[in-house]
């Protein structure tokens, strides 16, 4: 039996990789990141349905990249430089300053859009990678007891989409059997209601099943305990409200800022713990945080540190100039940050 890495460790890894991507527009670093993500996913994903989400997100990322390029060409800012081709331009009224329609399209402008779009695409790919690697239901199992029921609501809601797709396929087949068209506008008309009905029926069945299997059972807690939990949560929300004033409004007294935020966090955490006592749930085979998880967490922190240092040492290398357009440099520290994303491979086993 292969032990799966703690989902929180995968998420730390993904957040670190996304942070590295956010900090740079250098295509060399971004390409290295994509290679790392693809390699880790290919080596460590299982055959479960959710493991396919990396491919789906990469496709989405490509669409985003293409859209960014098209927008740049059509309505993007006109950057000076070497013109590739000219689009007929439209003069816009004065209030639309900053937006241009058509005009000369330069290599520099395309490069700037490509770098920027690539960064967004890599962040999306990171999200897809972590969804492939950490099973969504295992992530929800890490939630504190008081939030468990909200977590289940999310699981059920998330399962709605694949269920709806299955129902849709069955309804379409049934329409074909009734001799109705399945293509074109006539094929889409009237699909909504049966699909919705199916989904609703499933929700009711599921709710009955969950009820019959003890979902929502409560331990008996003293009124005092229950009141403490409620009071802490309400006070915490109030403190958070005040803290946001303190942080956003420069005229407010300093004590209202960070100290109030700390108080809010403490109160809310207390509320969660006290509220969790009402839930009597136990955990089946909880994910454990062992040496491998520490190693991945350490690698993630180091990667973020590396990219931060790289940004201080040589900011130009992380954001290579597109005007004038230069060959992007290879910042070794940033590449090292991306390479640290390979650490999970060393500390986990290949799934069956």
């Amino acid at each position: 039996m292969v032990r799966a890495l703690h989902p929180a460790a995968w998420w730390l890894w993904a957040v670190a990789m996304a942070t590295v991507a956010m900090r740079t527009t250098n295509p060399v670093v971004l390409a290295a990141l994509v290679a790392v993500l693809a390699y880790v996913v290919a080596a460590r994903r299982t055959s479960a349905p959710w493991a396919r989400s990396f491919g789906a997100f990469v496709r989405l990322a490509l669409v985003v990249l293409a859209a960014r390029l098209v927008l740049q060409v059509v309505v993007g800012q006109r950057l000076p430089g070497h013109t590739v081709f000219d689009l007929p331009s439209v003069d816009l009224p004065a209030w639309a300053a900053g937006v241009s329609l058509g005009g000369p399209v330069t290599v520099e402008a395309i490069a700037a859009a490509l770098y920027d779009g690539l960064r967004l695409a890599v962040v999306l790919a990171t999200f897809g990678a972590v969804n492939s690697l950490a099973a969504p239901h295992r992530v929800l199992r890490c939630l504190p007891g008081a939030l468990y029921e909200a977590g289940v609501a999310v699981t059920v809601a998330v399962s709605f989409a694949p269920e709806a797709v299955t129902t849709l396929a069955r309804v379409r087949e049934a329409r074909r059997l009734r001799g109705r068209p399945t293509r074109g506008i006539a094929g889409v008309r009237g699909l909504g209601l049966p699909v919705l009905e199916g989904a609703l029926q499933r929700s009711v069945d599921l709710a009955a099943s969950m009820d019959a299997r003890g979902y929502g059972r409560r331990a008996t807690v003293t009124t005092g305990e229950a009141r403490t939990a409620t009071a802490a949560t309400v006070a915490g929300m109030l403190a958070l409200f005040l803290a946001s004033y303190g942080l956003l409004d420069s005229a407010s007294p300093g004590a209202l800022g960070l100290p109030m935020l700390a108080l809010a966090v403490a109160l809310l955490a207390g509320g969660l713990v006290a509220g969790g006592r009402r839930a009597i749930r136990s955990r089946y085979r909880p994910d454990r945080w062992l040496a491998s998880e520490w190693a991945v967490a350490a690698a993630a922190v180091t990667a973020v540190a590396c990219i931060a240092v790289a940004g201080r040492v040589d900011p130009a290398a992380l954001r290579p100039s597109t005007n004038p357009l230069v060959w992007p440099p290879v910042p070794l520290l940033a590449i090292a940050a991306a390479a640290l994303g390979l650490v999970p491979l060393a500390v986990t086993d290949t799934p069956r």
Partner: protein
Amino acid sequence: MIRFDRVTFTYTGAPAPALRDVDLVVPEGELCLVVGRTGSGKSTLLRLINGLVPHFTGGLLVGRVTVGGRDTQAFAPRDLADVVGVVGQDPAATFVTDVVEDELAYAMENLGVAPDVMRRRVEDALDLLAIADLRTRPLRALSGGEQQRVAIGAALAAGPRVLVLDEPTSSLDPAAADDVLAALTRLVHDLGVTVVLAEHRLERVVQYADRVVQLPGNGAPPVVGAPADVMATSPVAPPVVRLGRVAGWTPLPLSIRDARRHAQPLRDRLGADLPPRLHVAGDVVAHVHDLEARYGDVVALRDVGVDLRRNEVVAVMGRNGAGKSTLLAHLVGLRAPARGTVVVDGRAPASLKPRDAVRLVGLVPQDPGLLLYGESVDDECTTADREGALPTGTTRAALDRVLPEGLEGGRHPSDLSEGQRLGLALAVVLASAPPLVLLDEPTRGLDYNAKARLVTVLRALAGEGHCVVLATHDVELVAELADRVLVLADGEIVTDGPAREVVCHSPVFAPQVAKILSPSEWLTVAEVEAALA
């Protein structure tokens, strides 16, 4: 363990109670079988045991239901979850998690069972139901039989003292059904679990029951008693019991084994002459040649070649996942062959426009409700006439043939019984008069009466020159109806021959009468009855 005290239950807005004056005591460690026609209140009775009725459905409950000493009025279903485990008709609709192991642990997590105990009980449940090799599999990737066993395991792992099951074998092939029932009897015998079970296919379960509750419907109180006593008078009875009644055996046998003790004299009385089956097949209406079907990398059908003729009823049998539904999908043109050809009346159904295809071949899917969208029966009939460009009243005429007792036009399709819904869907399909009529698992959820009516209708269709093909697990239906049987295994045709020869020589597909009277090849009670008369 379970006690019903003068229980009458009425759903909100219903004109009459669903159950009336039920007095019932089920002691610990018994297997109690609930039988009755569709709509007689079986599911309501089962759901009363864990409080889903009335807590979840609403309605008026008079009287008291207590389970393990707890009154279900005072305890919500979730607070009864440690005493009662429930398995529904459609296990896939009740799964909460994604993976087998988590599903088994789900109820225990809610009950707050200690982690080490939970770990042990999950392992026990995996062993008890023989699903240990599935433990890390996603639930959606399992076959119907596997899902059913996981659902039972999930109910069982929480250690309830009562297990309630609503038609647990209705979607399973004979072998998988036997596995599930074997697991259930083991629970009753070895662990003292009280099991309450509703089932239409009595031939599968009645010999395991300690007590039978027969719900007559129409508001009469239930008949409760030992299986042999209740079966002696019950309007619903398995073939072994009906054969016992015809032959006048006492005590009435409930199992094949009991019946075989009386079989020799009956065989002697019947003699060696089997009733001839008058089956003259007509022209070839569908021709399948070298068919191969794939789902991704998985080959679902391979080298399938078969000719289907007018005037014959062909049963397609085989395990869950053997490729039965896939074969039907190809015949009706929902799927195009990966290799080979499917020709119906000279044309390939997959290449036709939907409205032309329905004149050639019609399919009633496993869930006939999928075919129905109308607001009412009348609406459904007029829509079918209009869409098929048929003369007004064609569908209604077909419906009156399929359901001779009539069906009020104002009723909503989802309020019909299983048998009526199947009838309506069949009428919609028959309205276009396709020469080839396919039915996928038509007897799921049908009681014996509805089944007998279906047999009459389908026989008549074959007599008029249709070719009827059914994919089914129901061996008794095949014995009553089929002229020819195809057995699929792993996507290949392993047997293709006359029904009598194929089913009588198979230990899995033989109907009860054939098993009792073997080596004589009698198939149905009606045949025996006619020979004795």
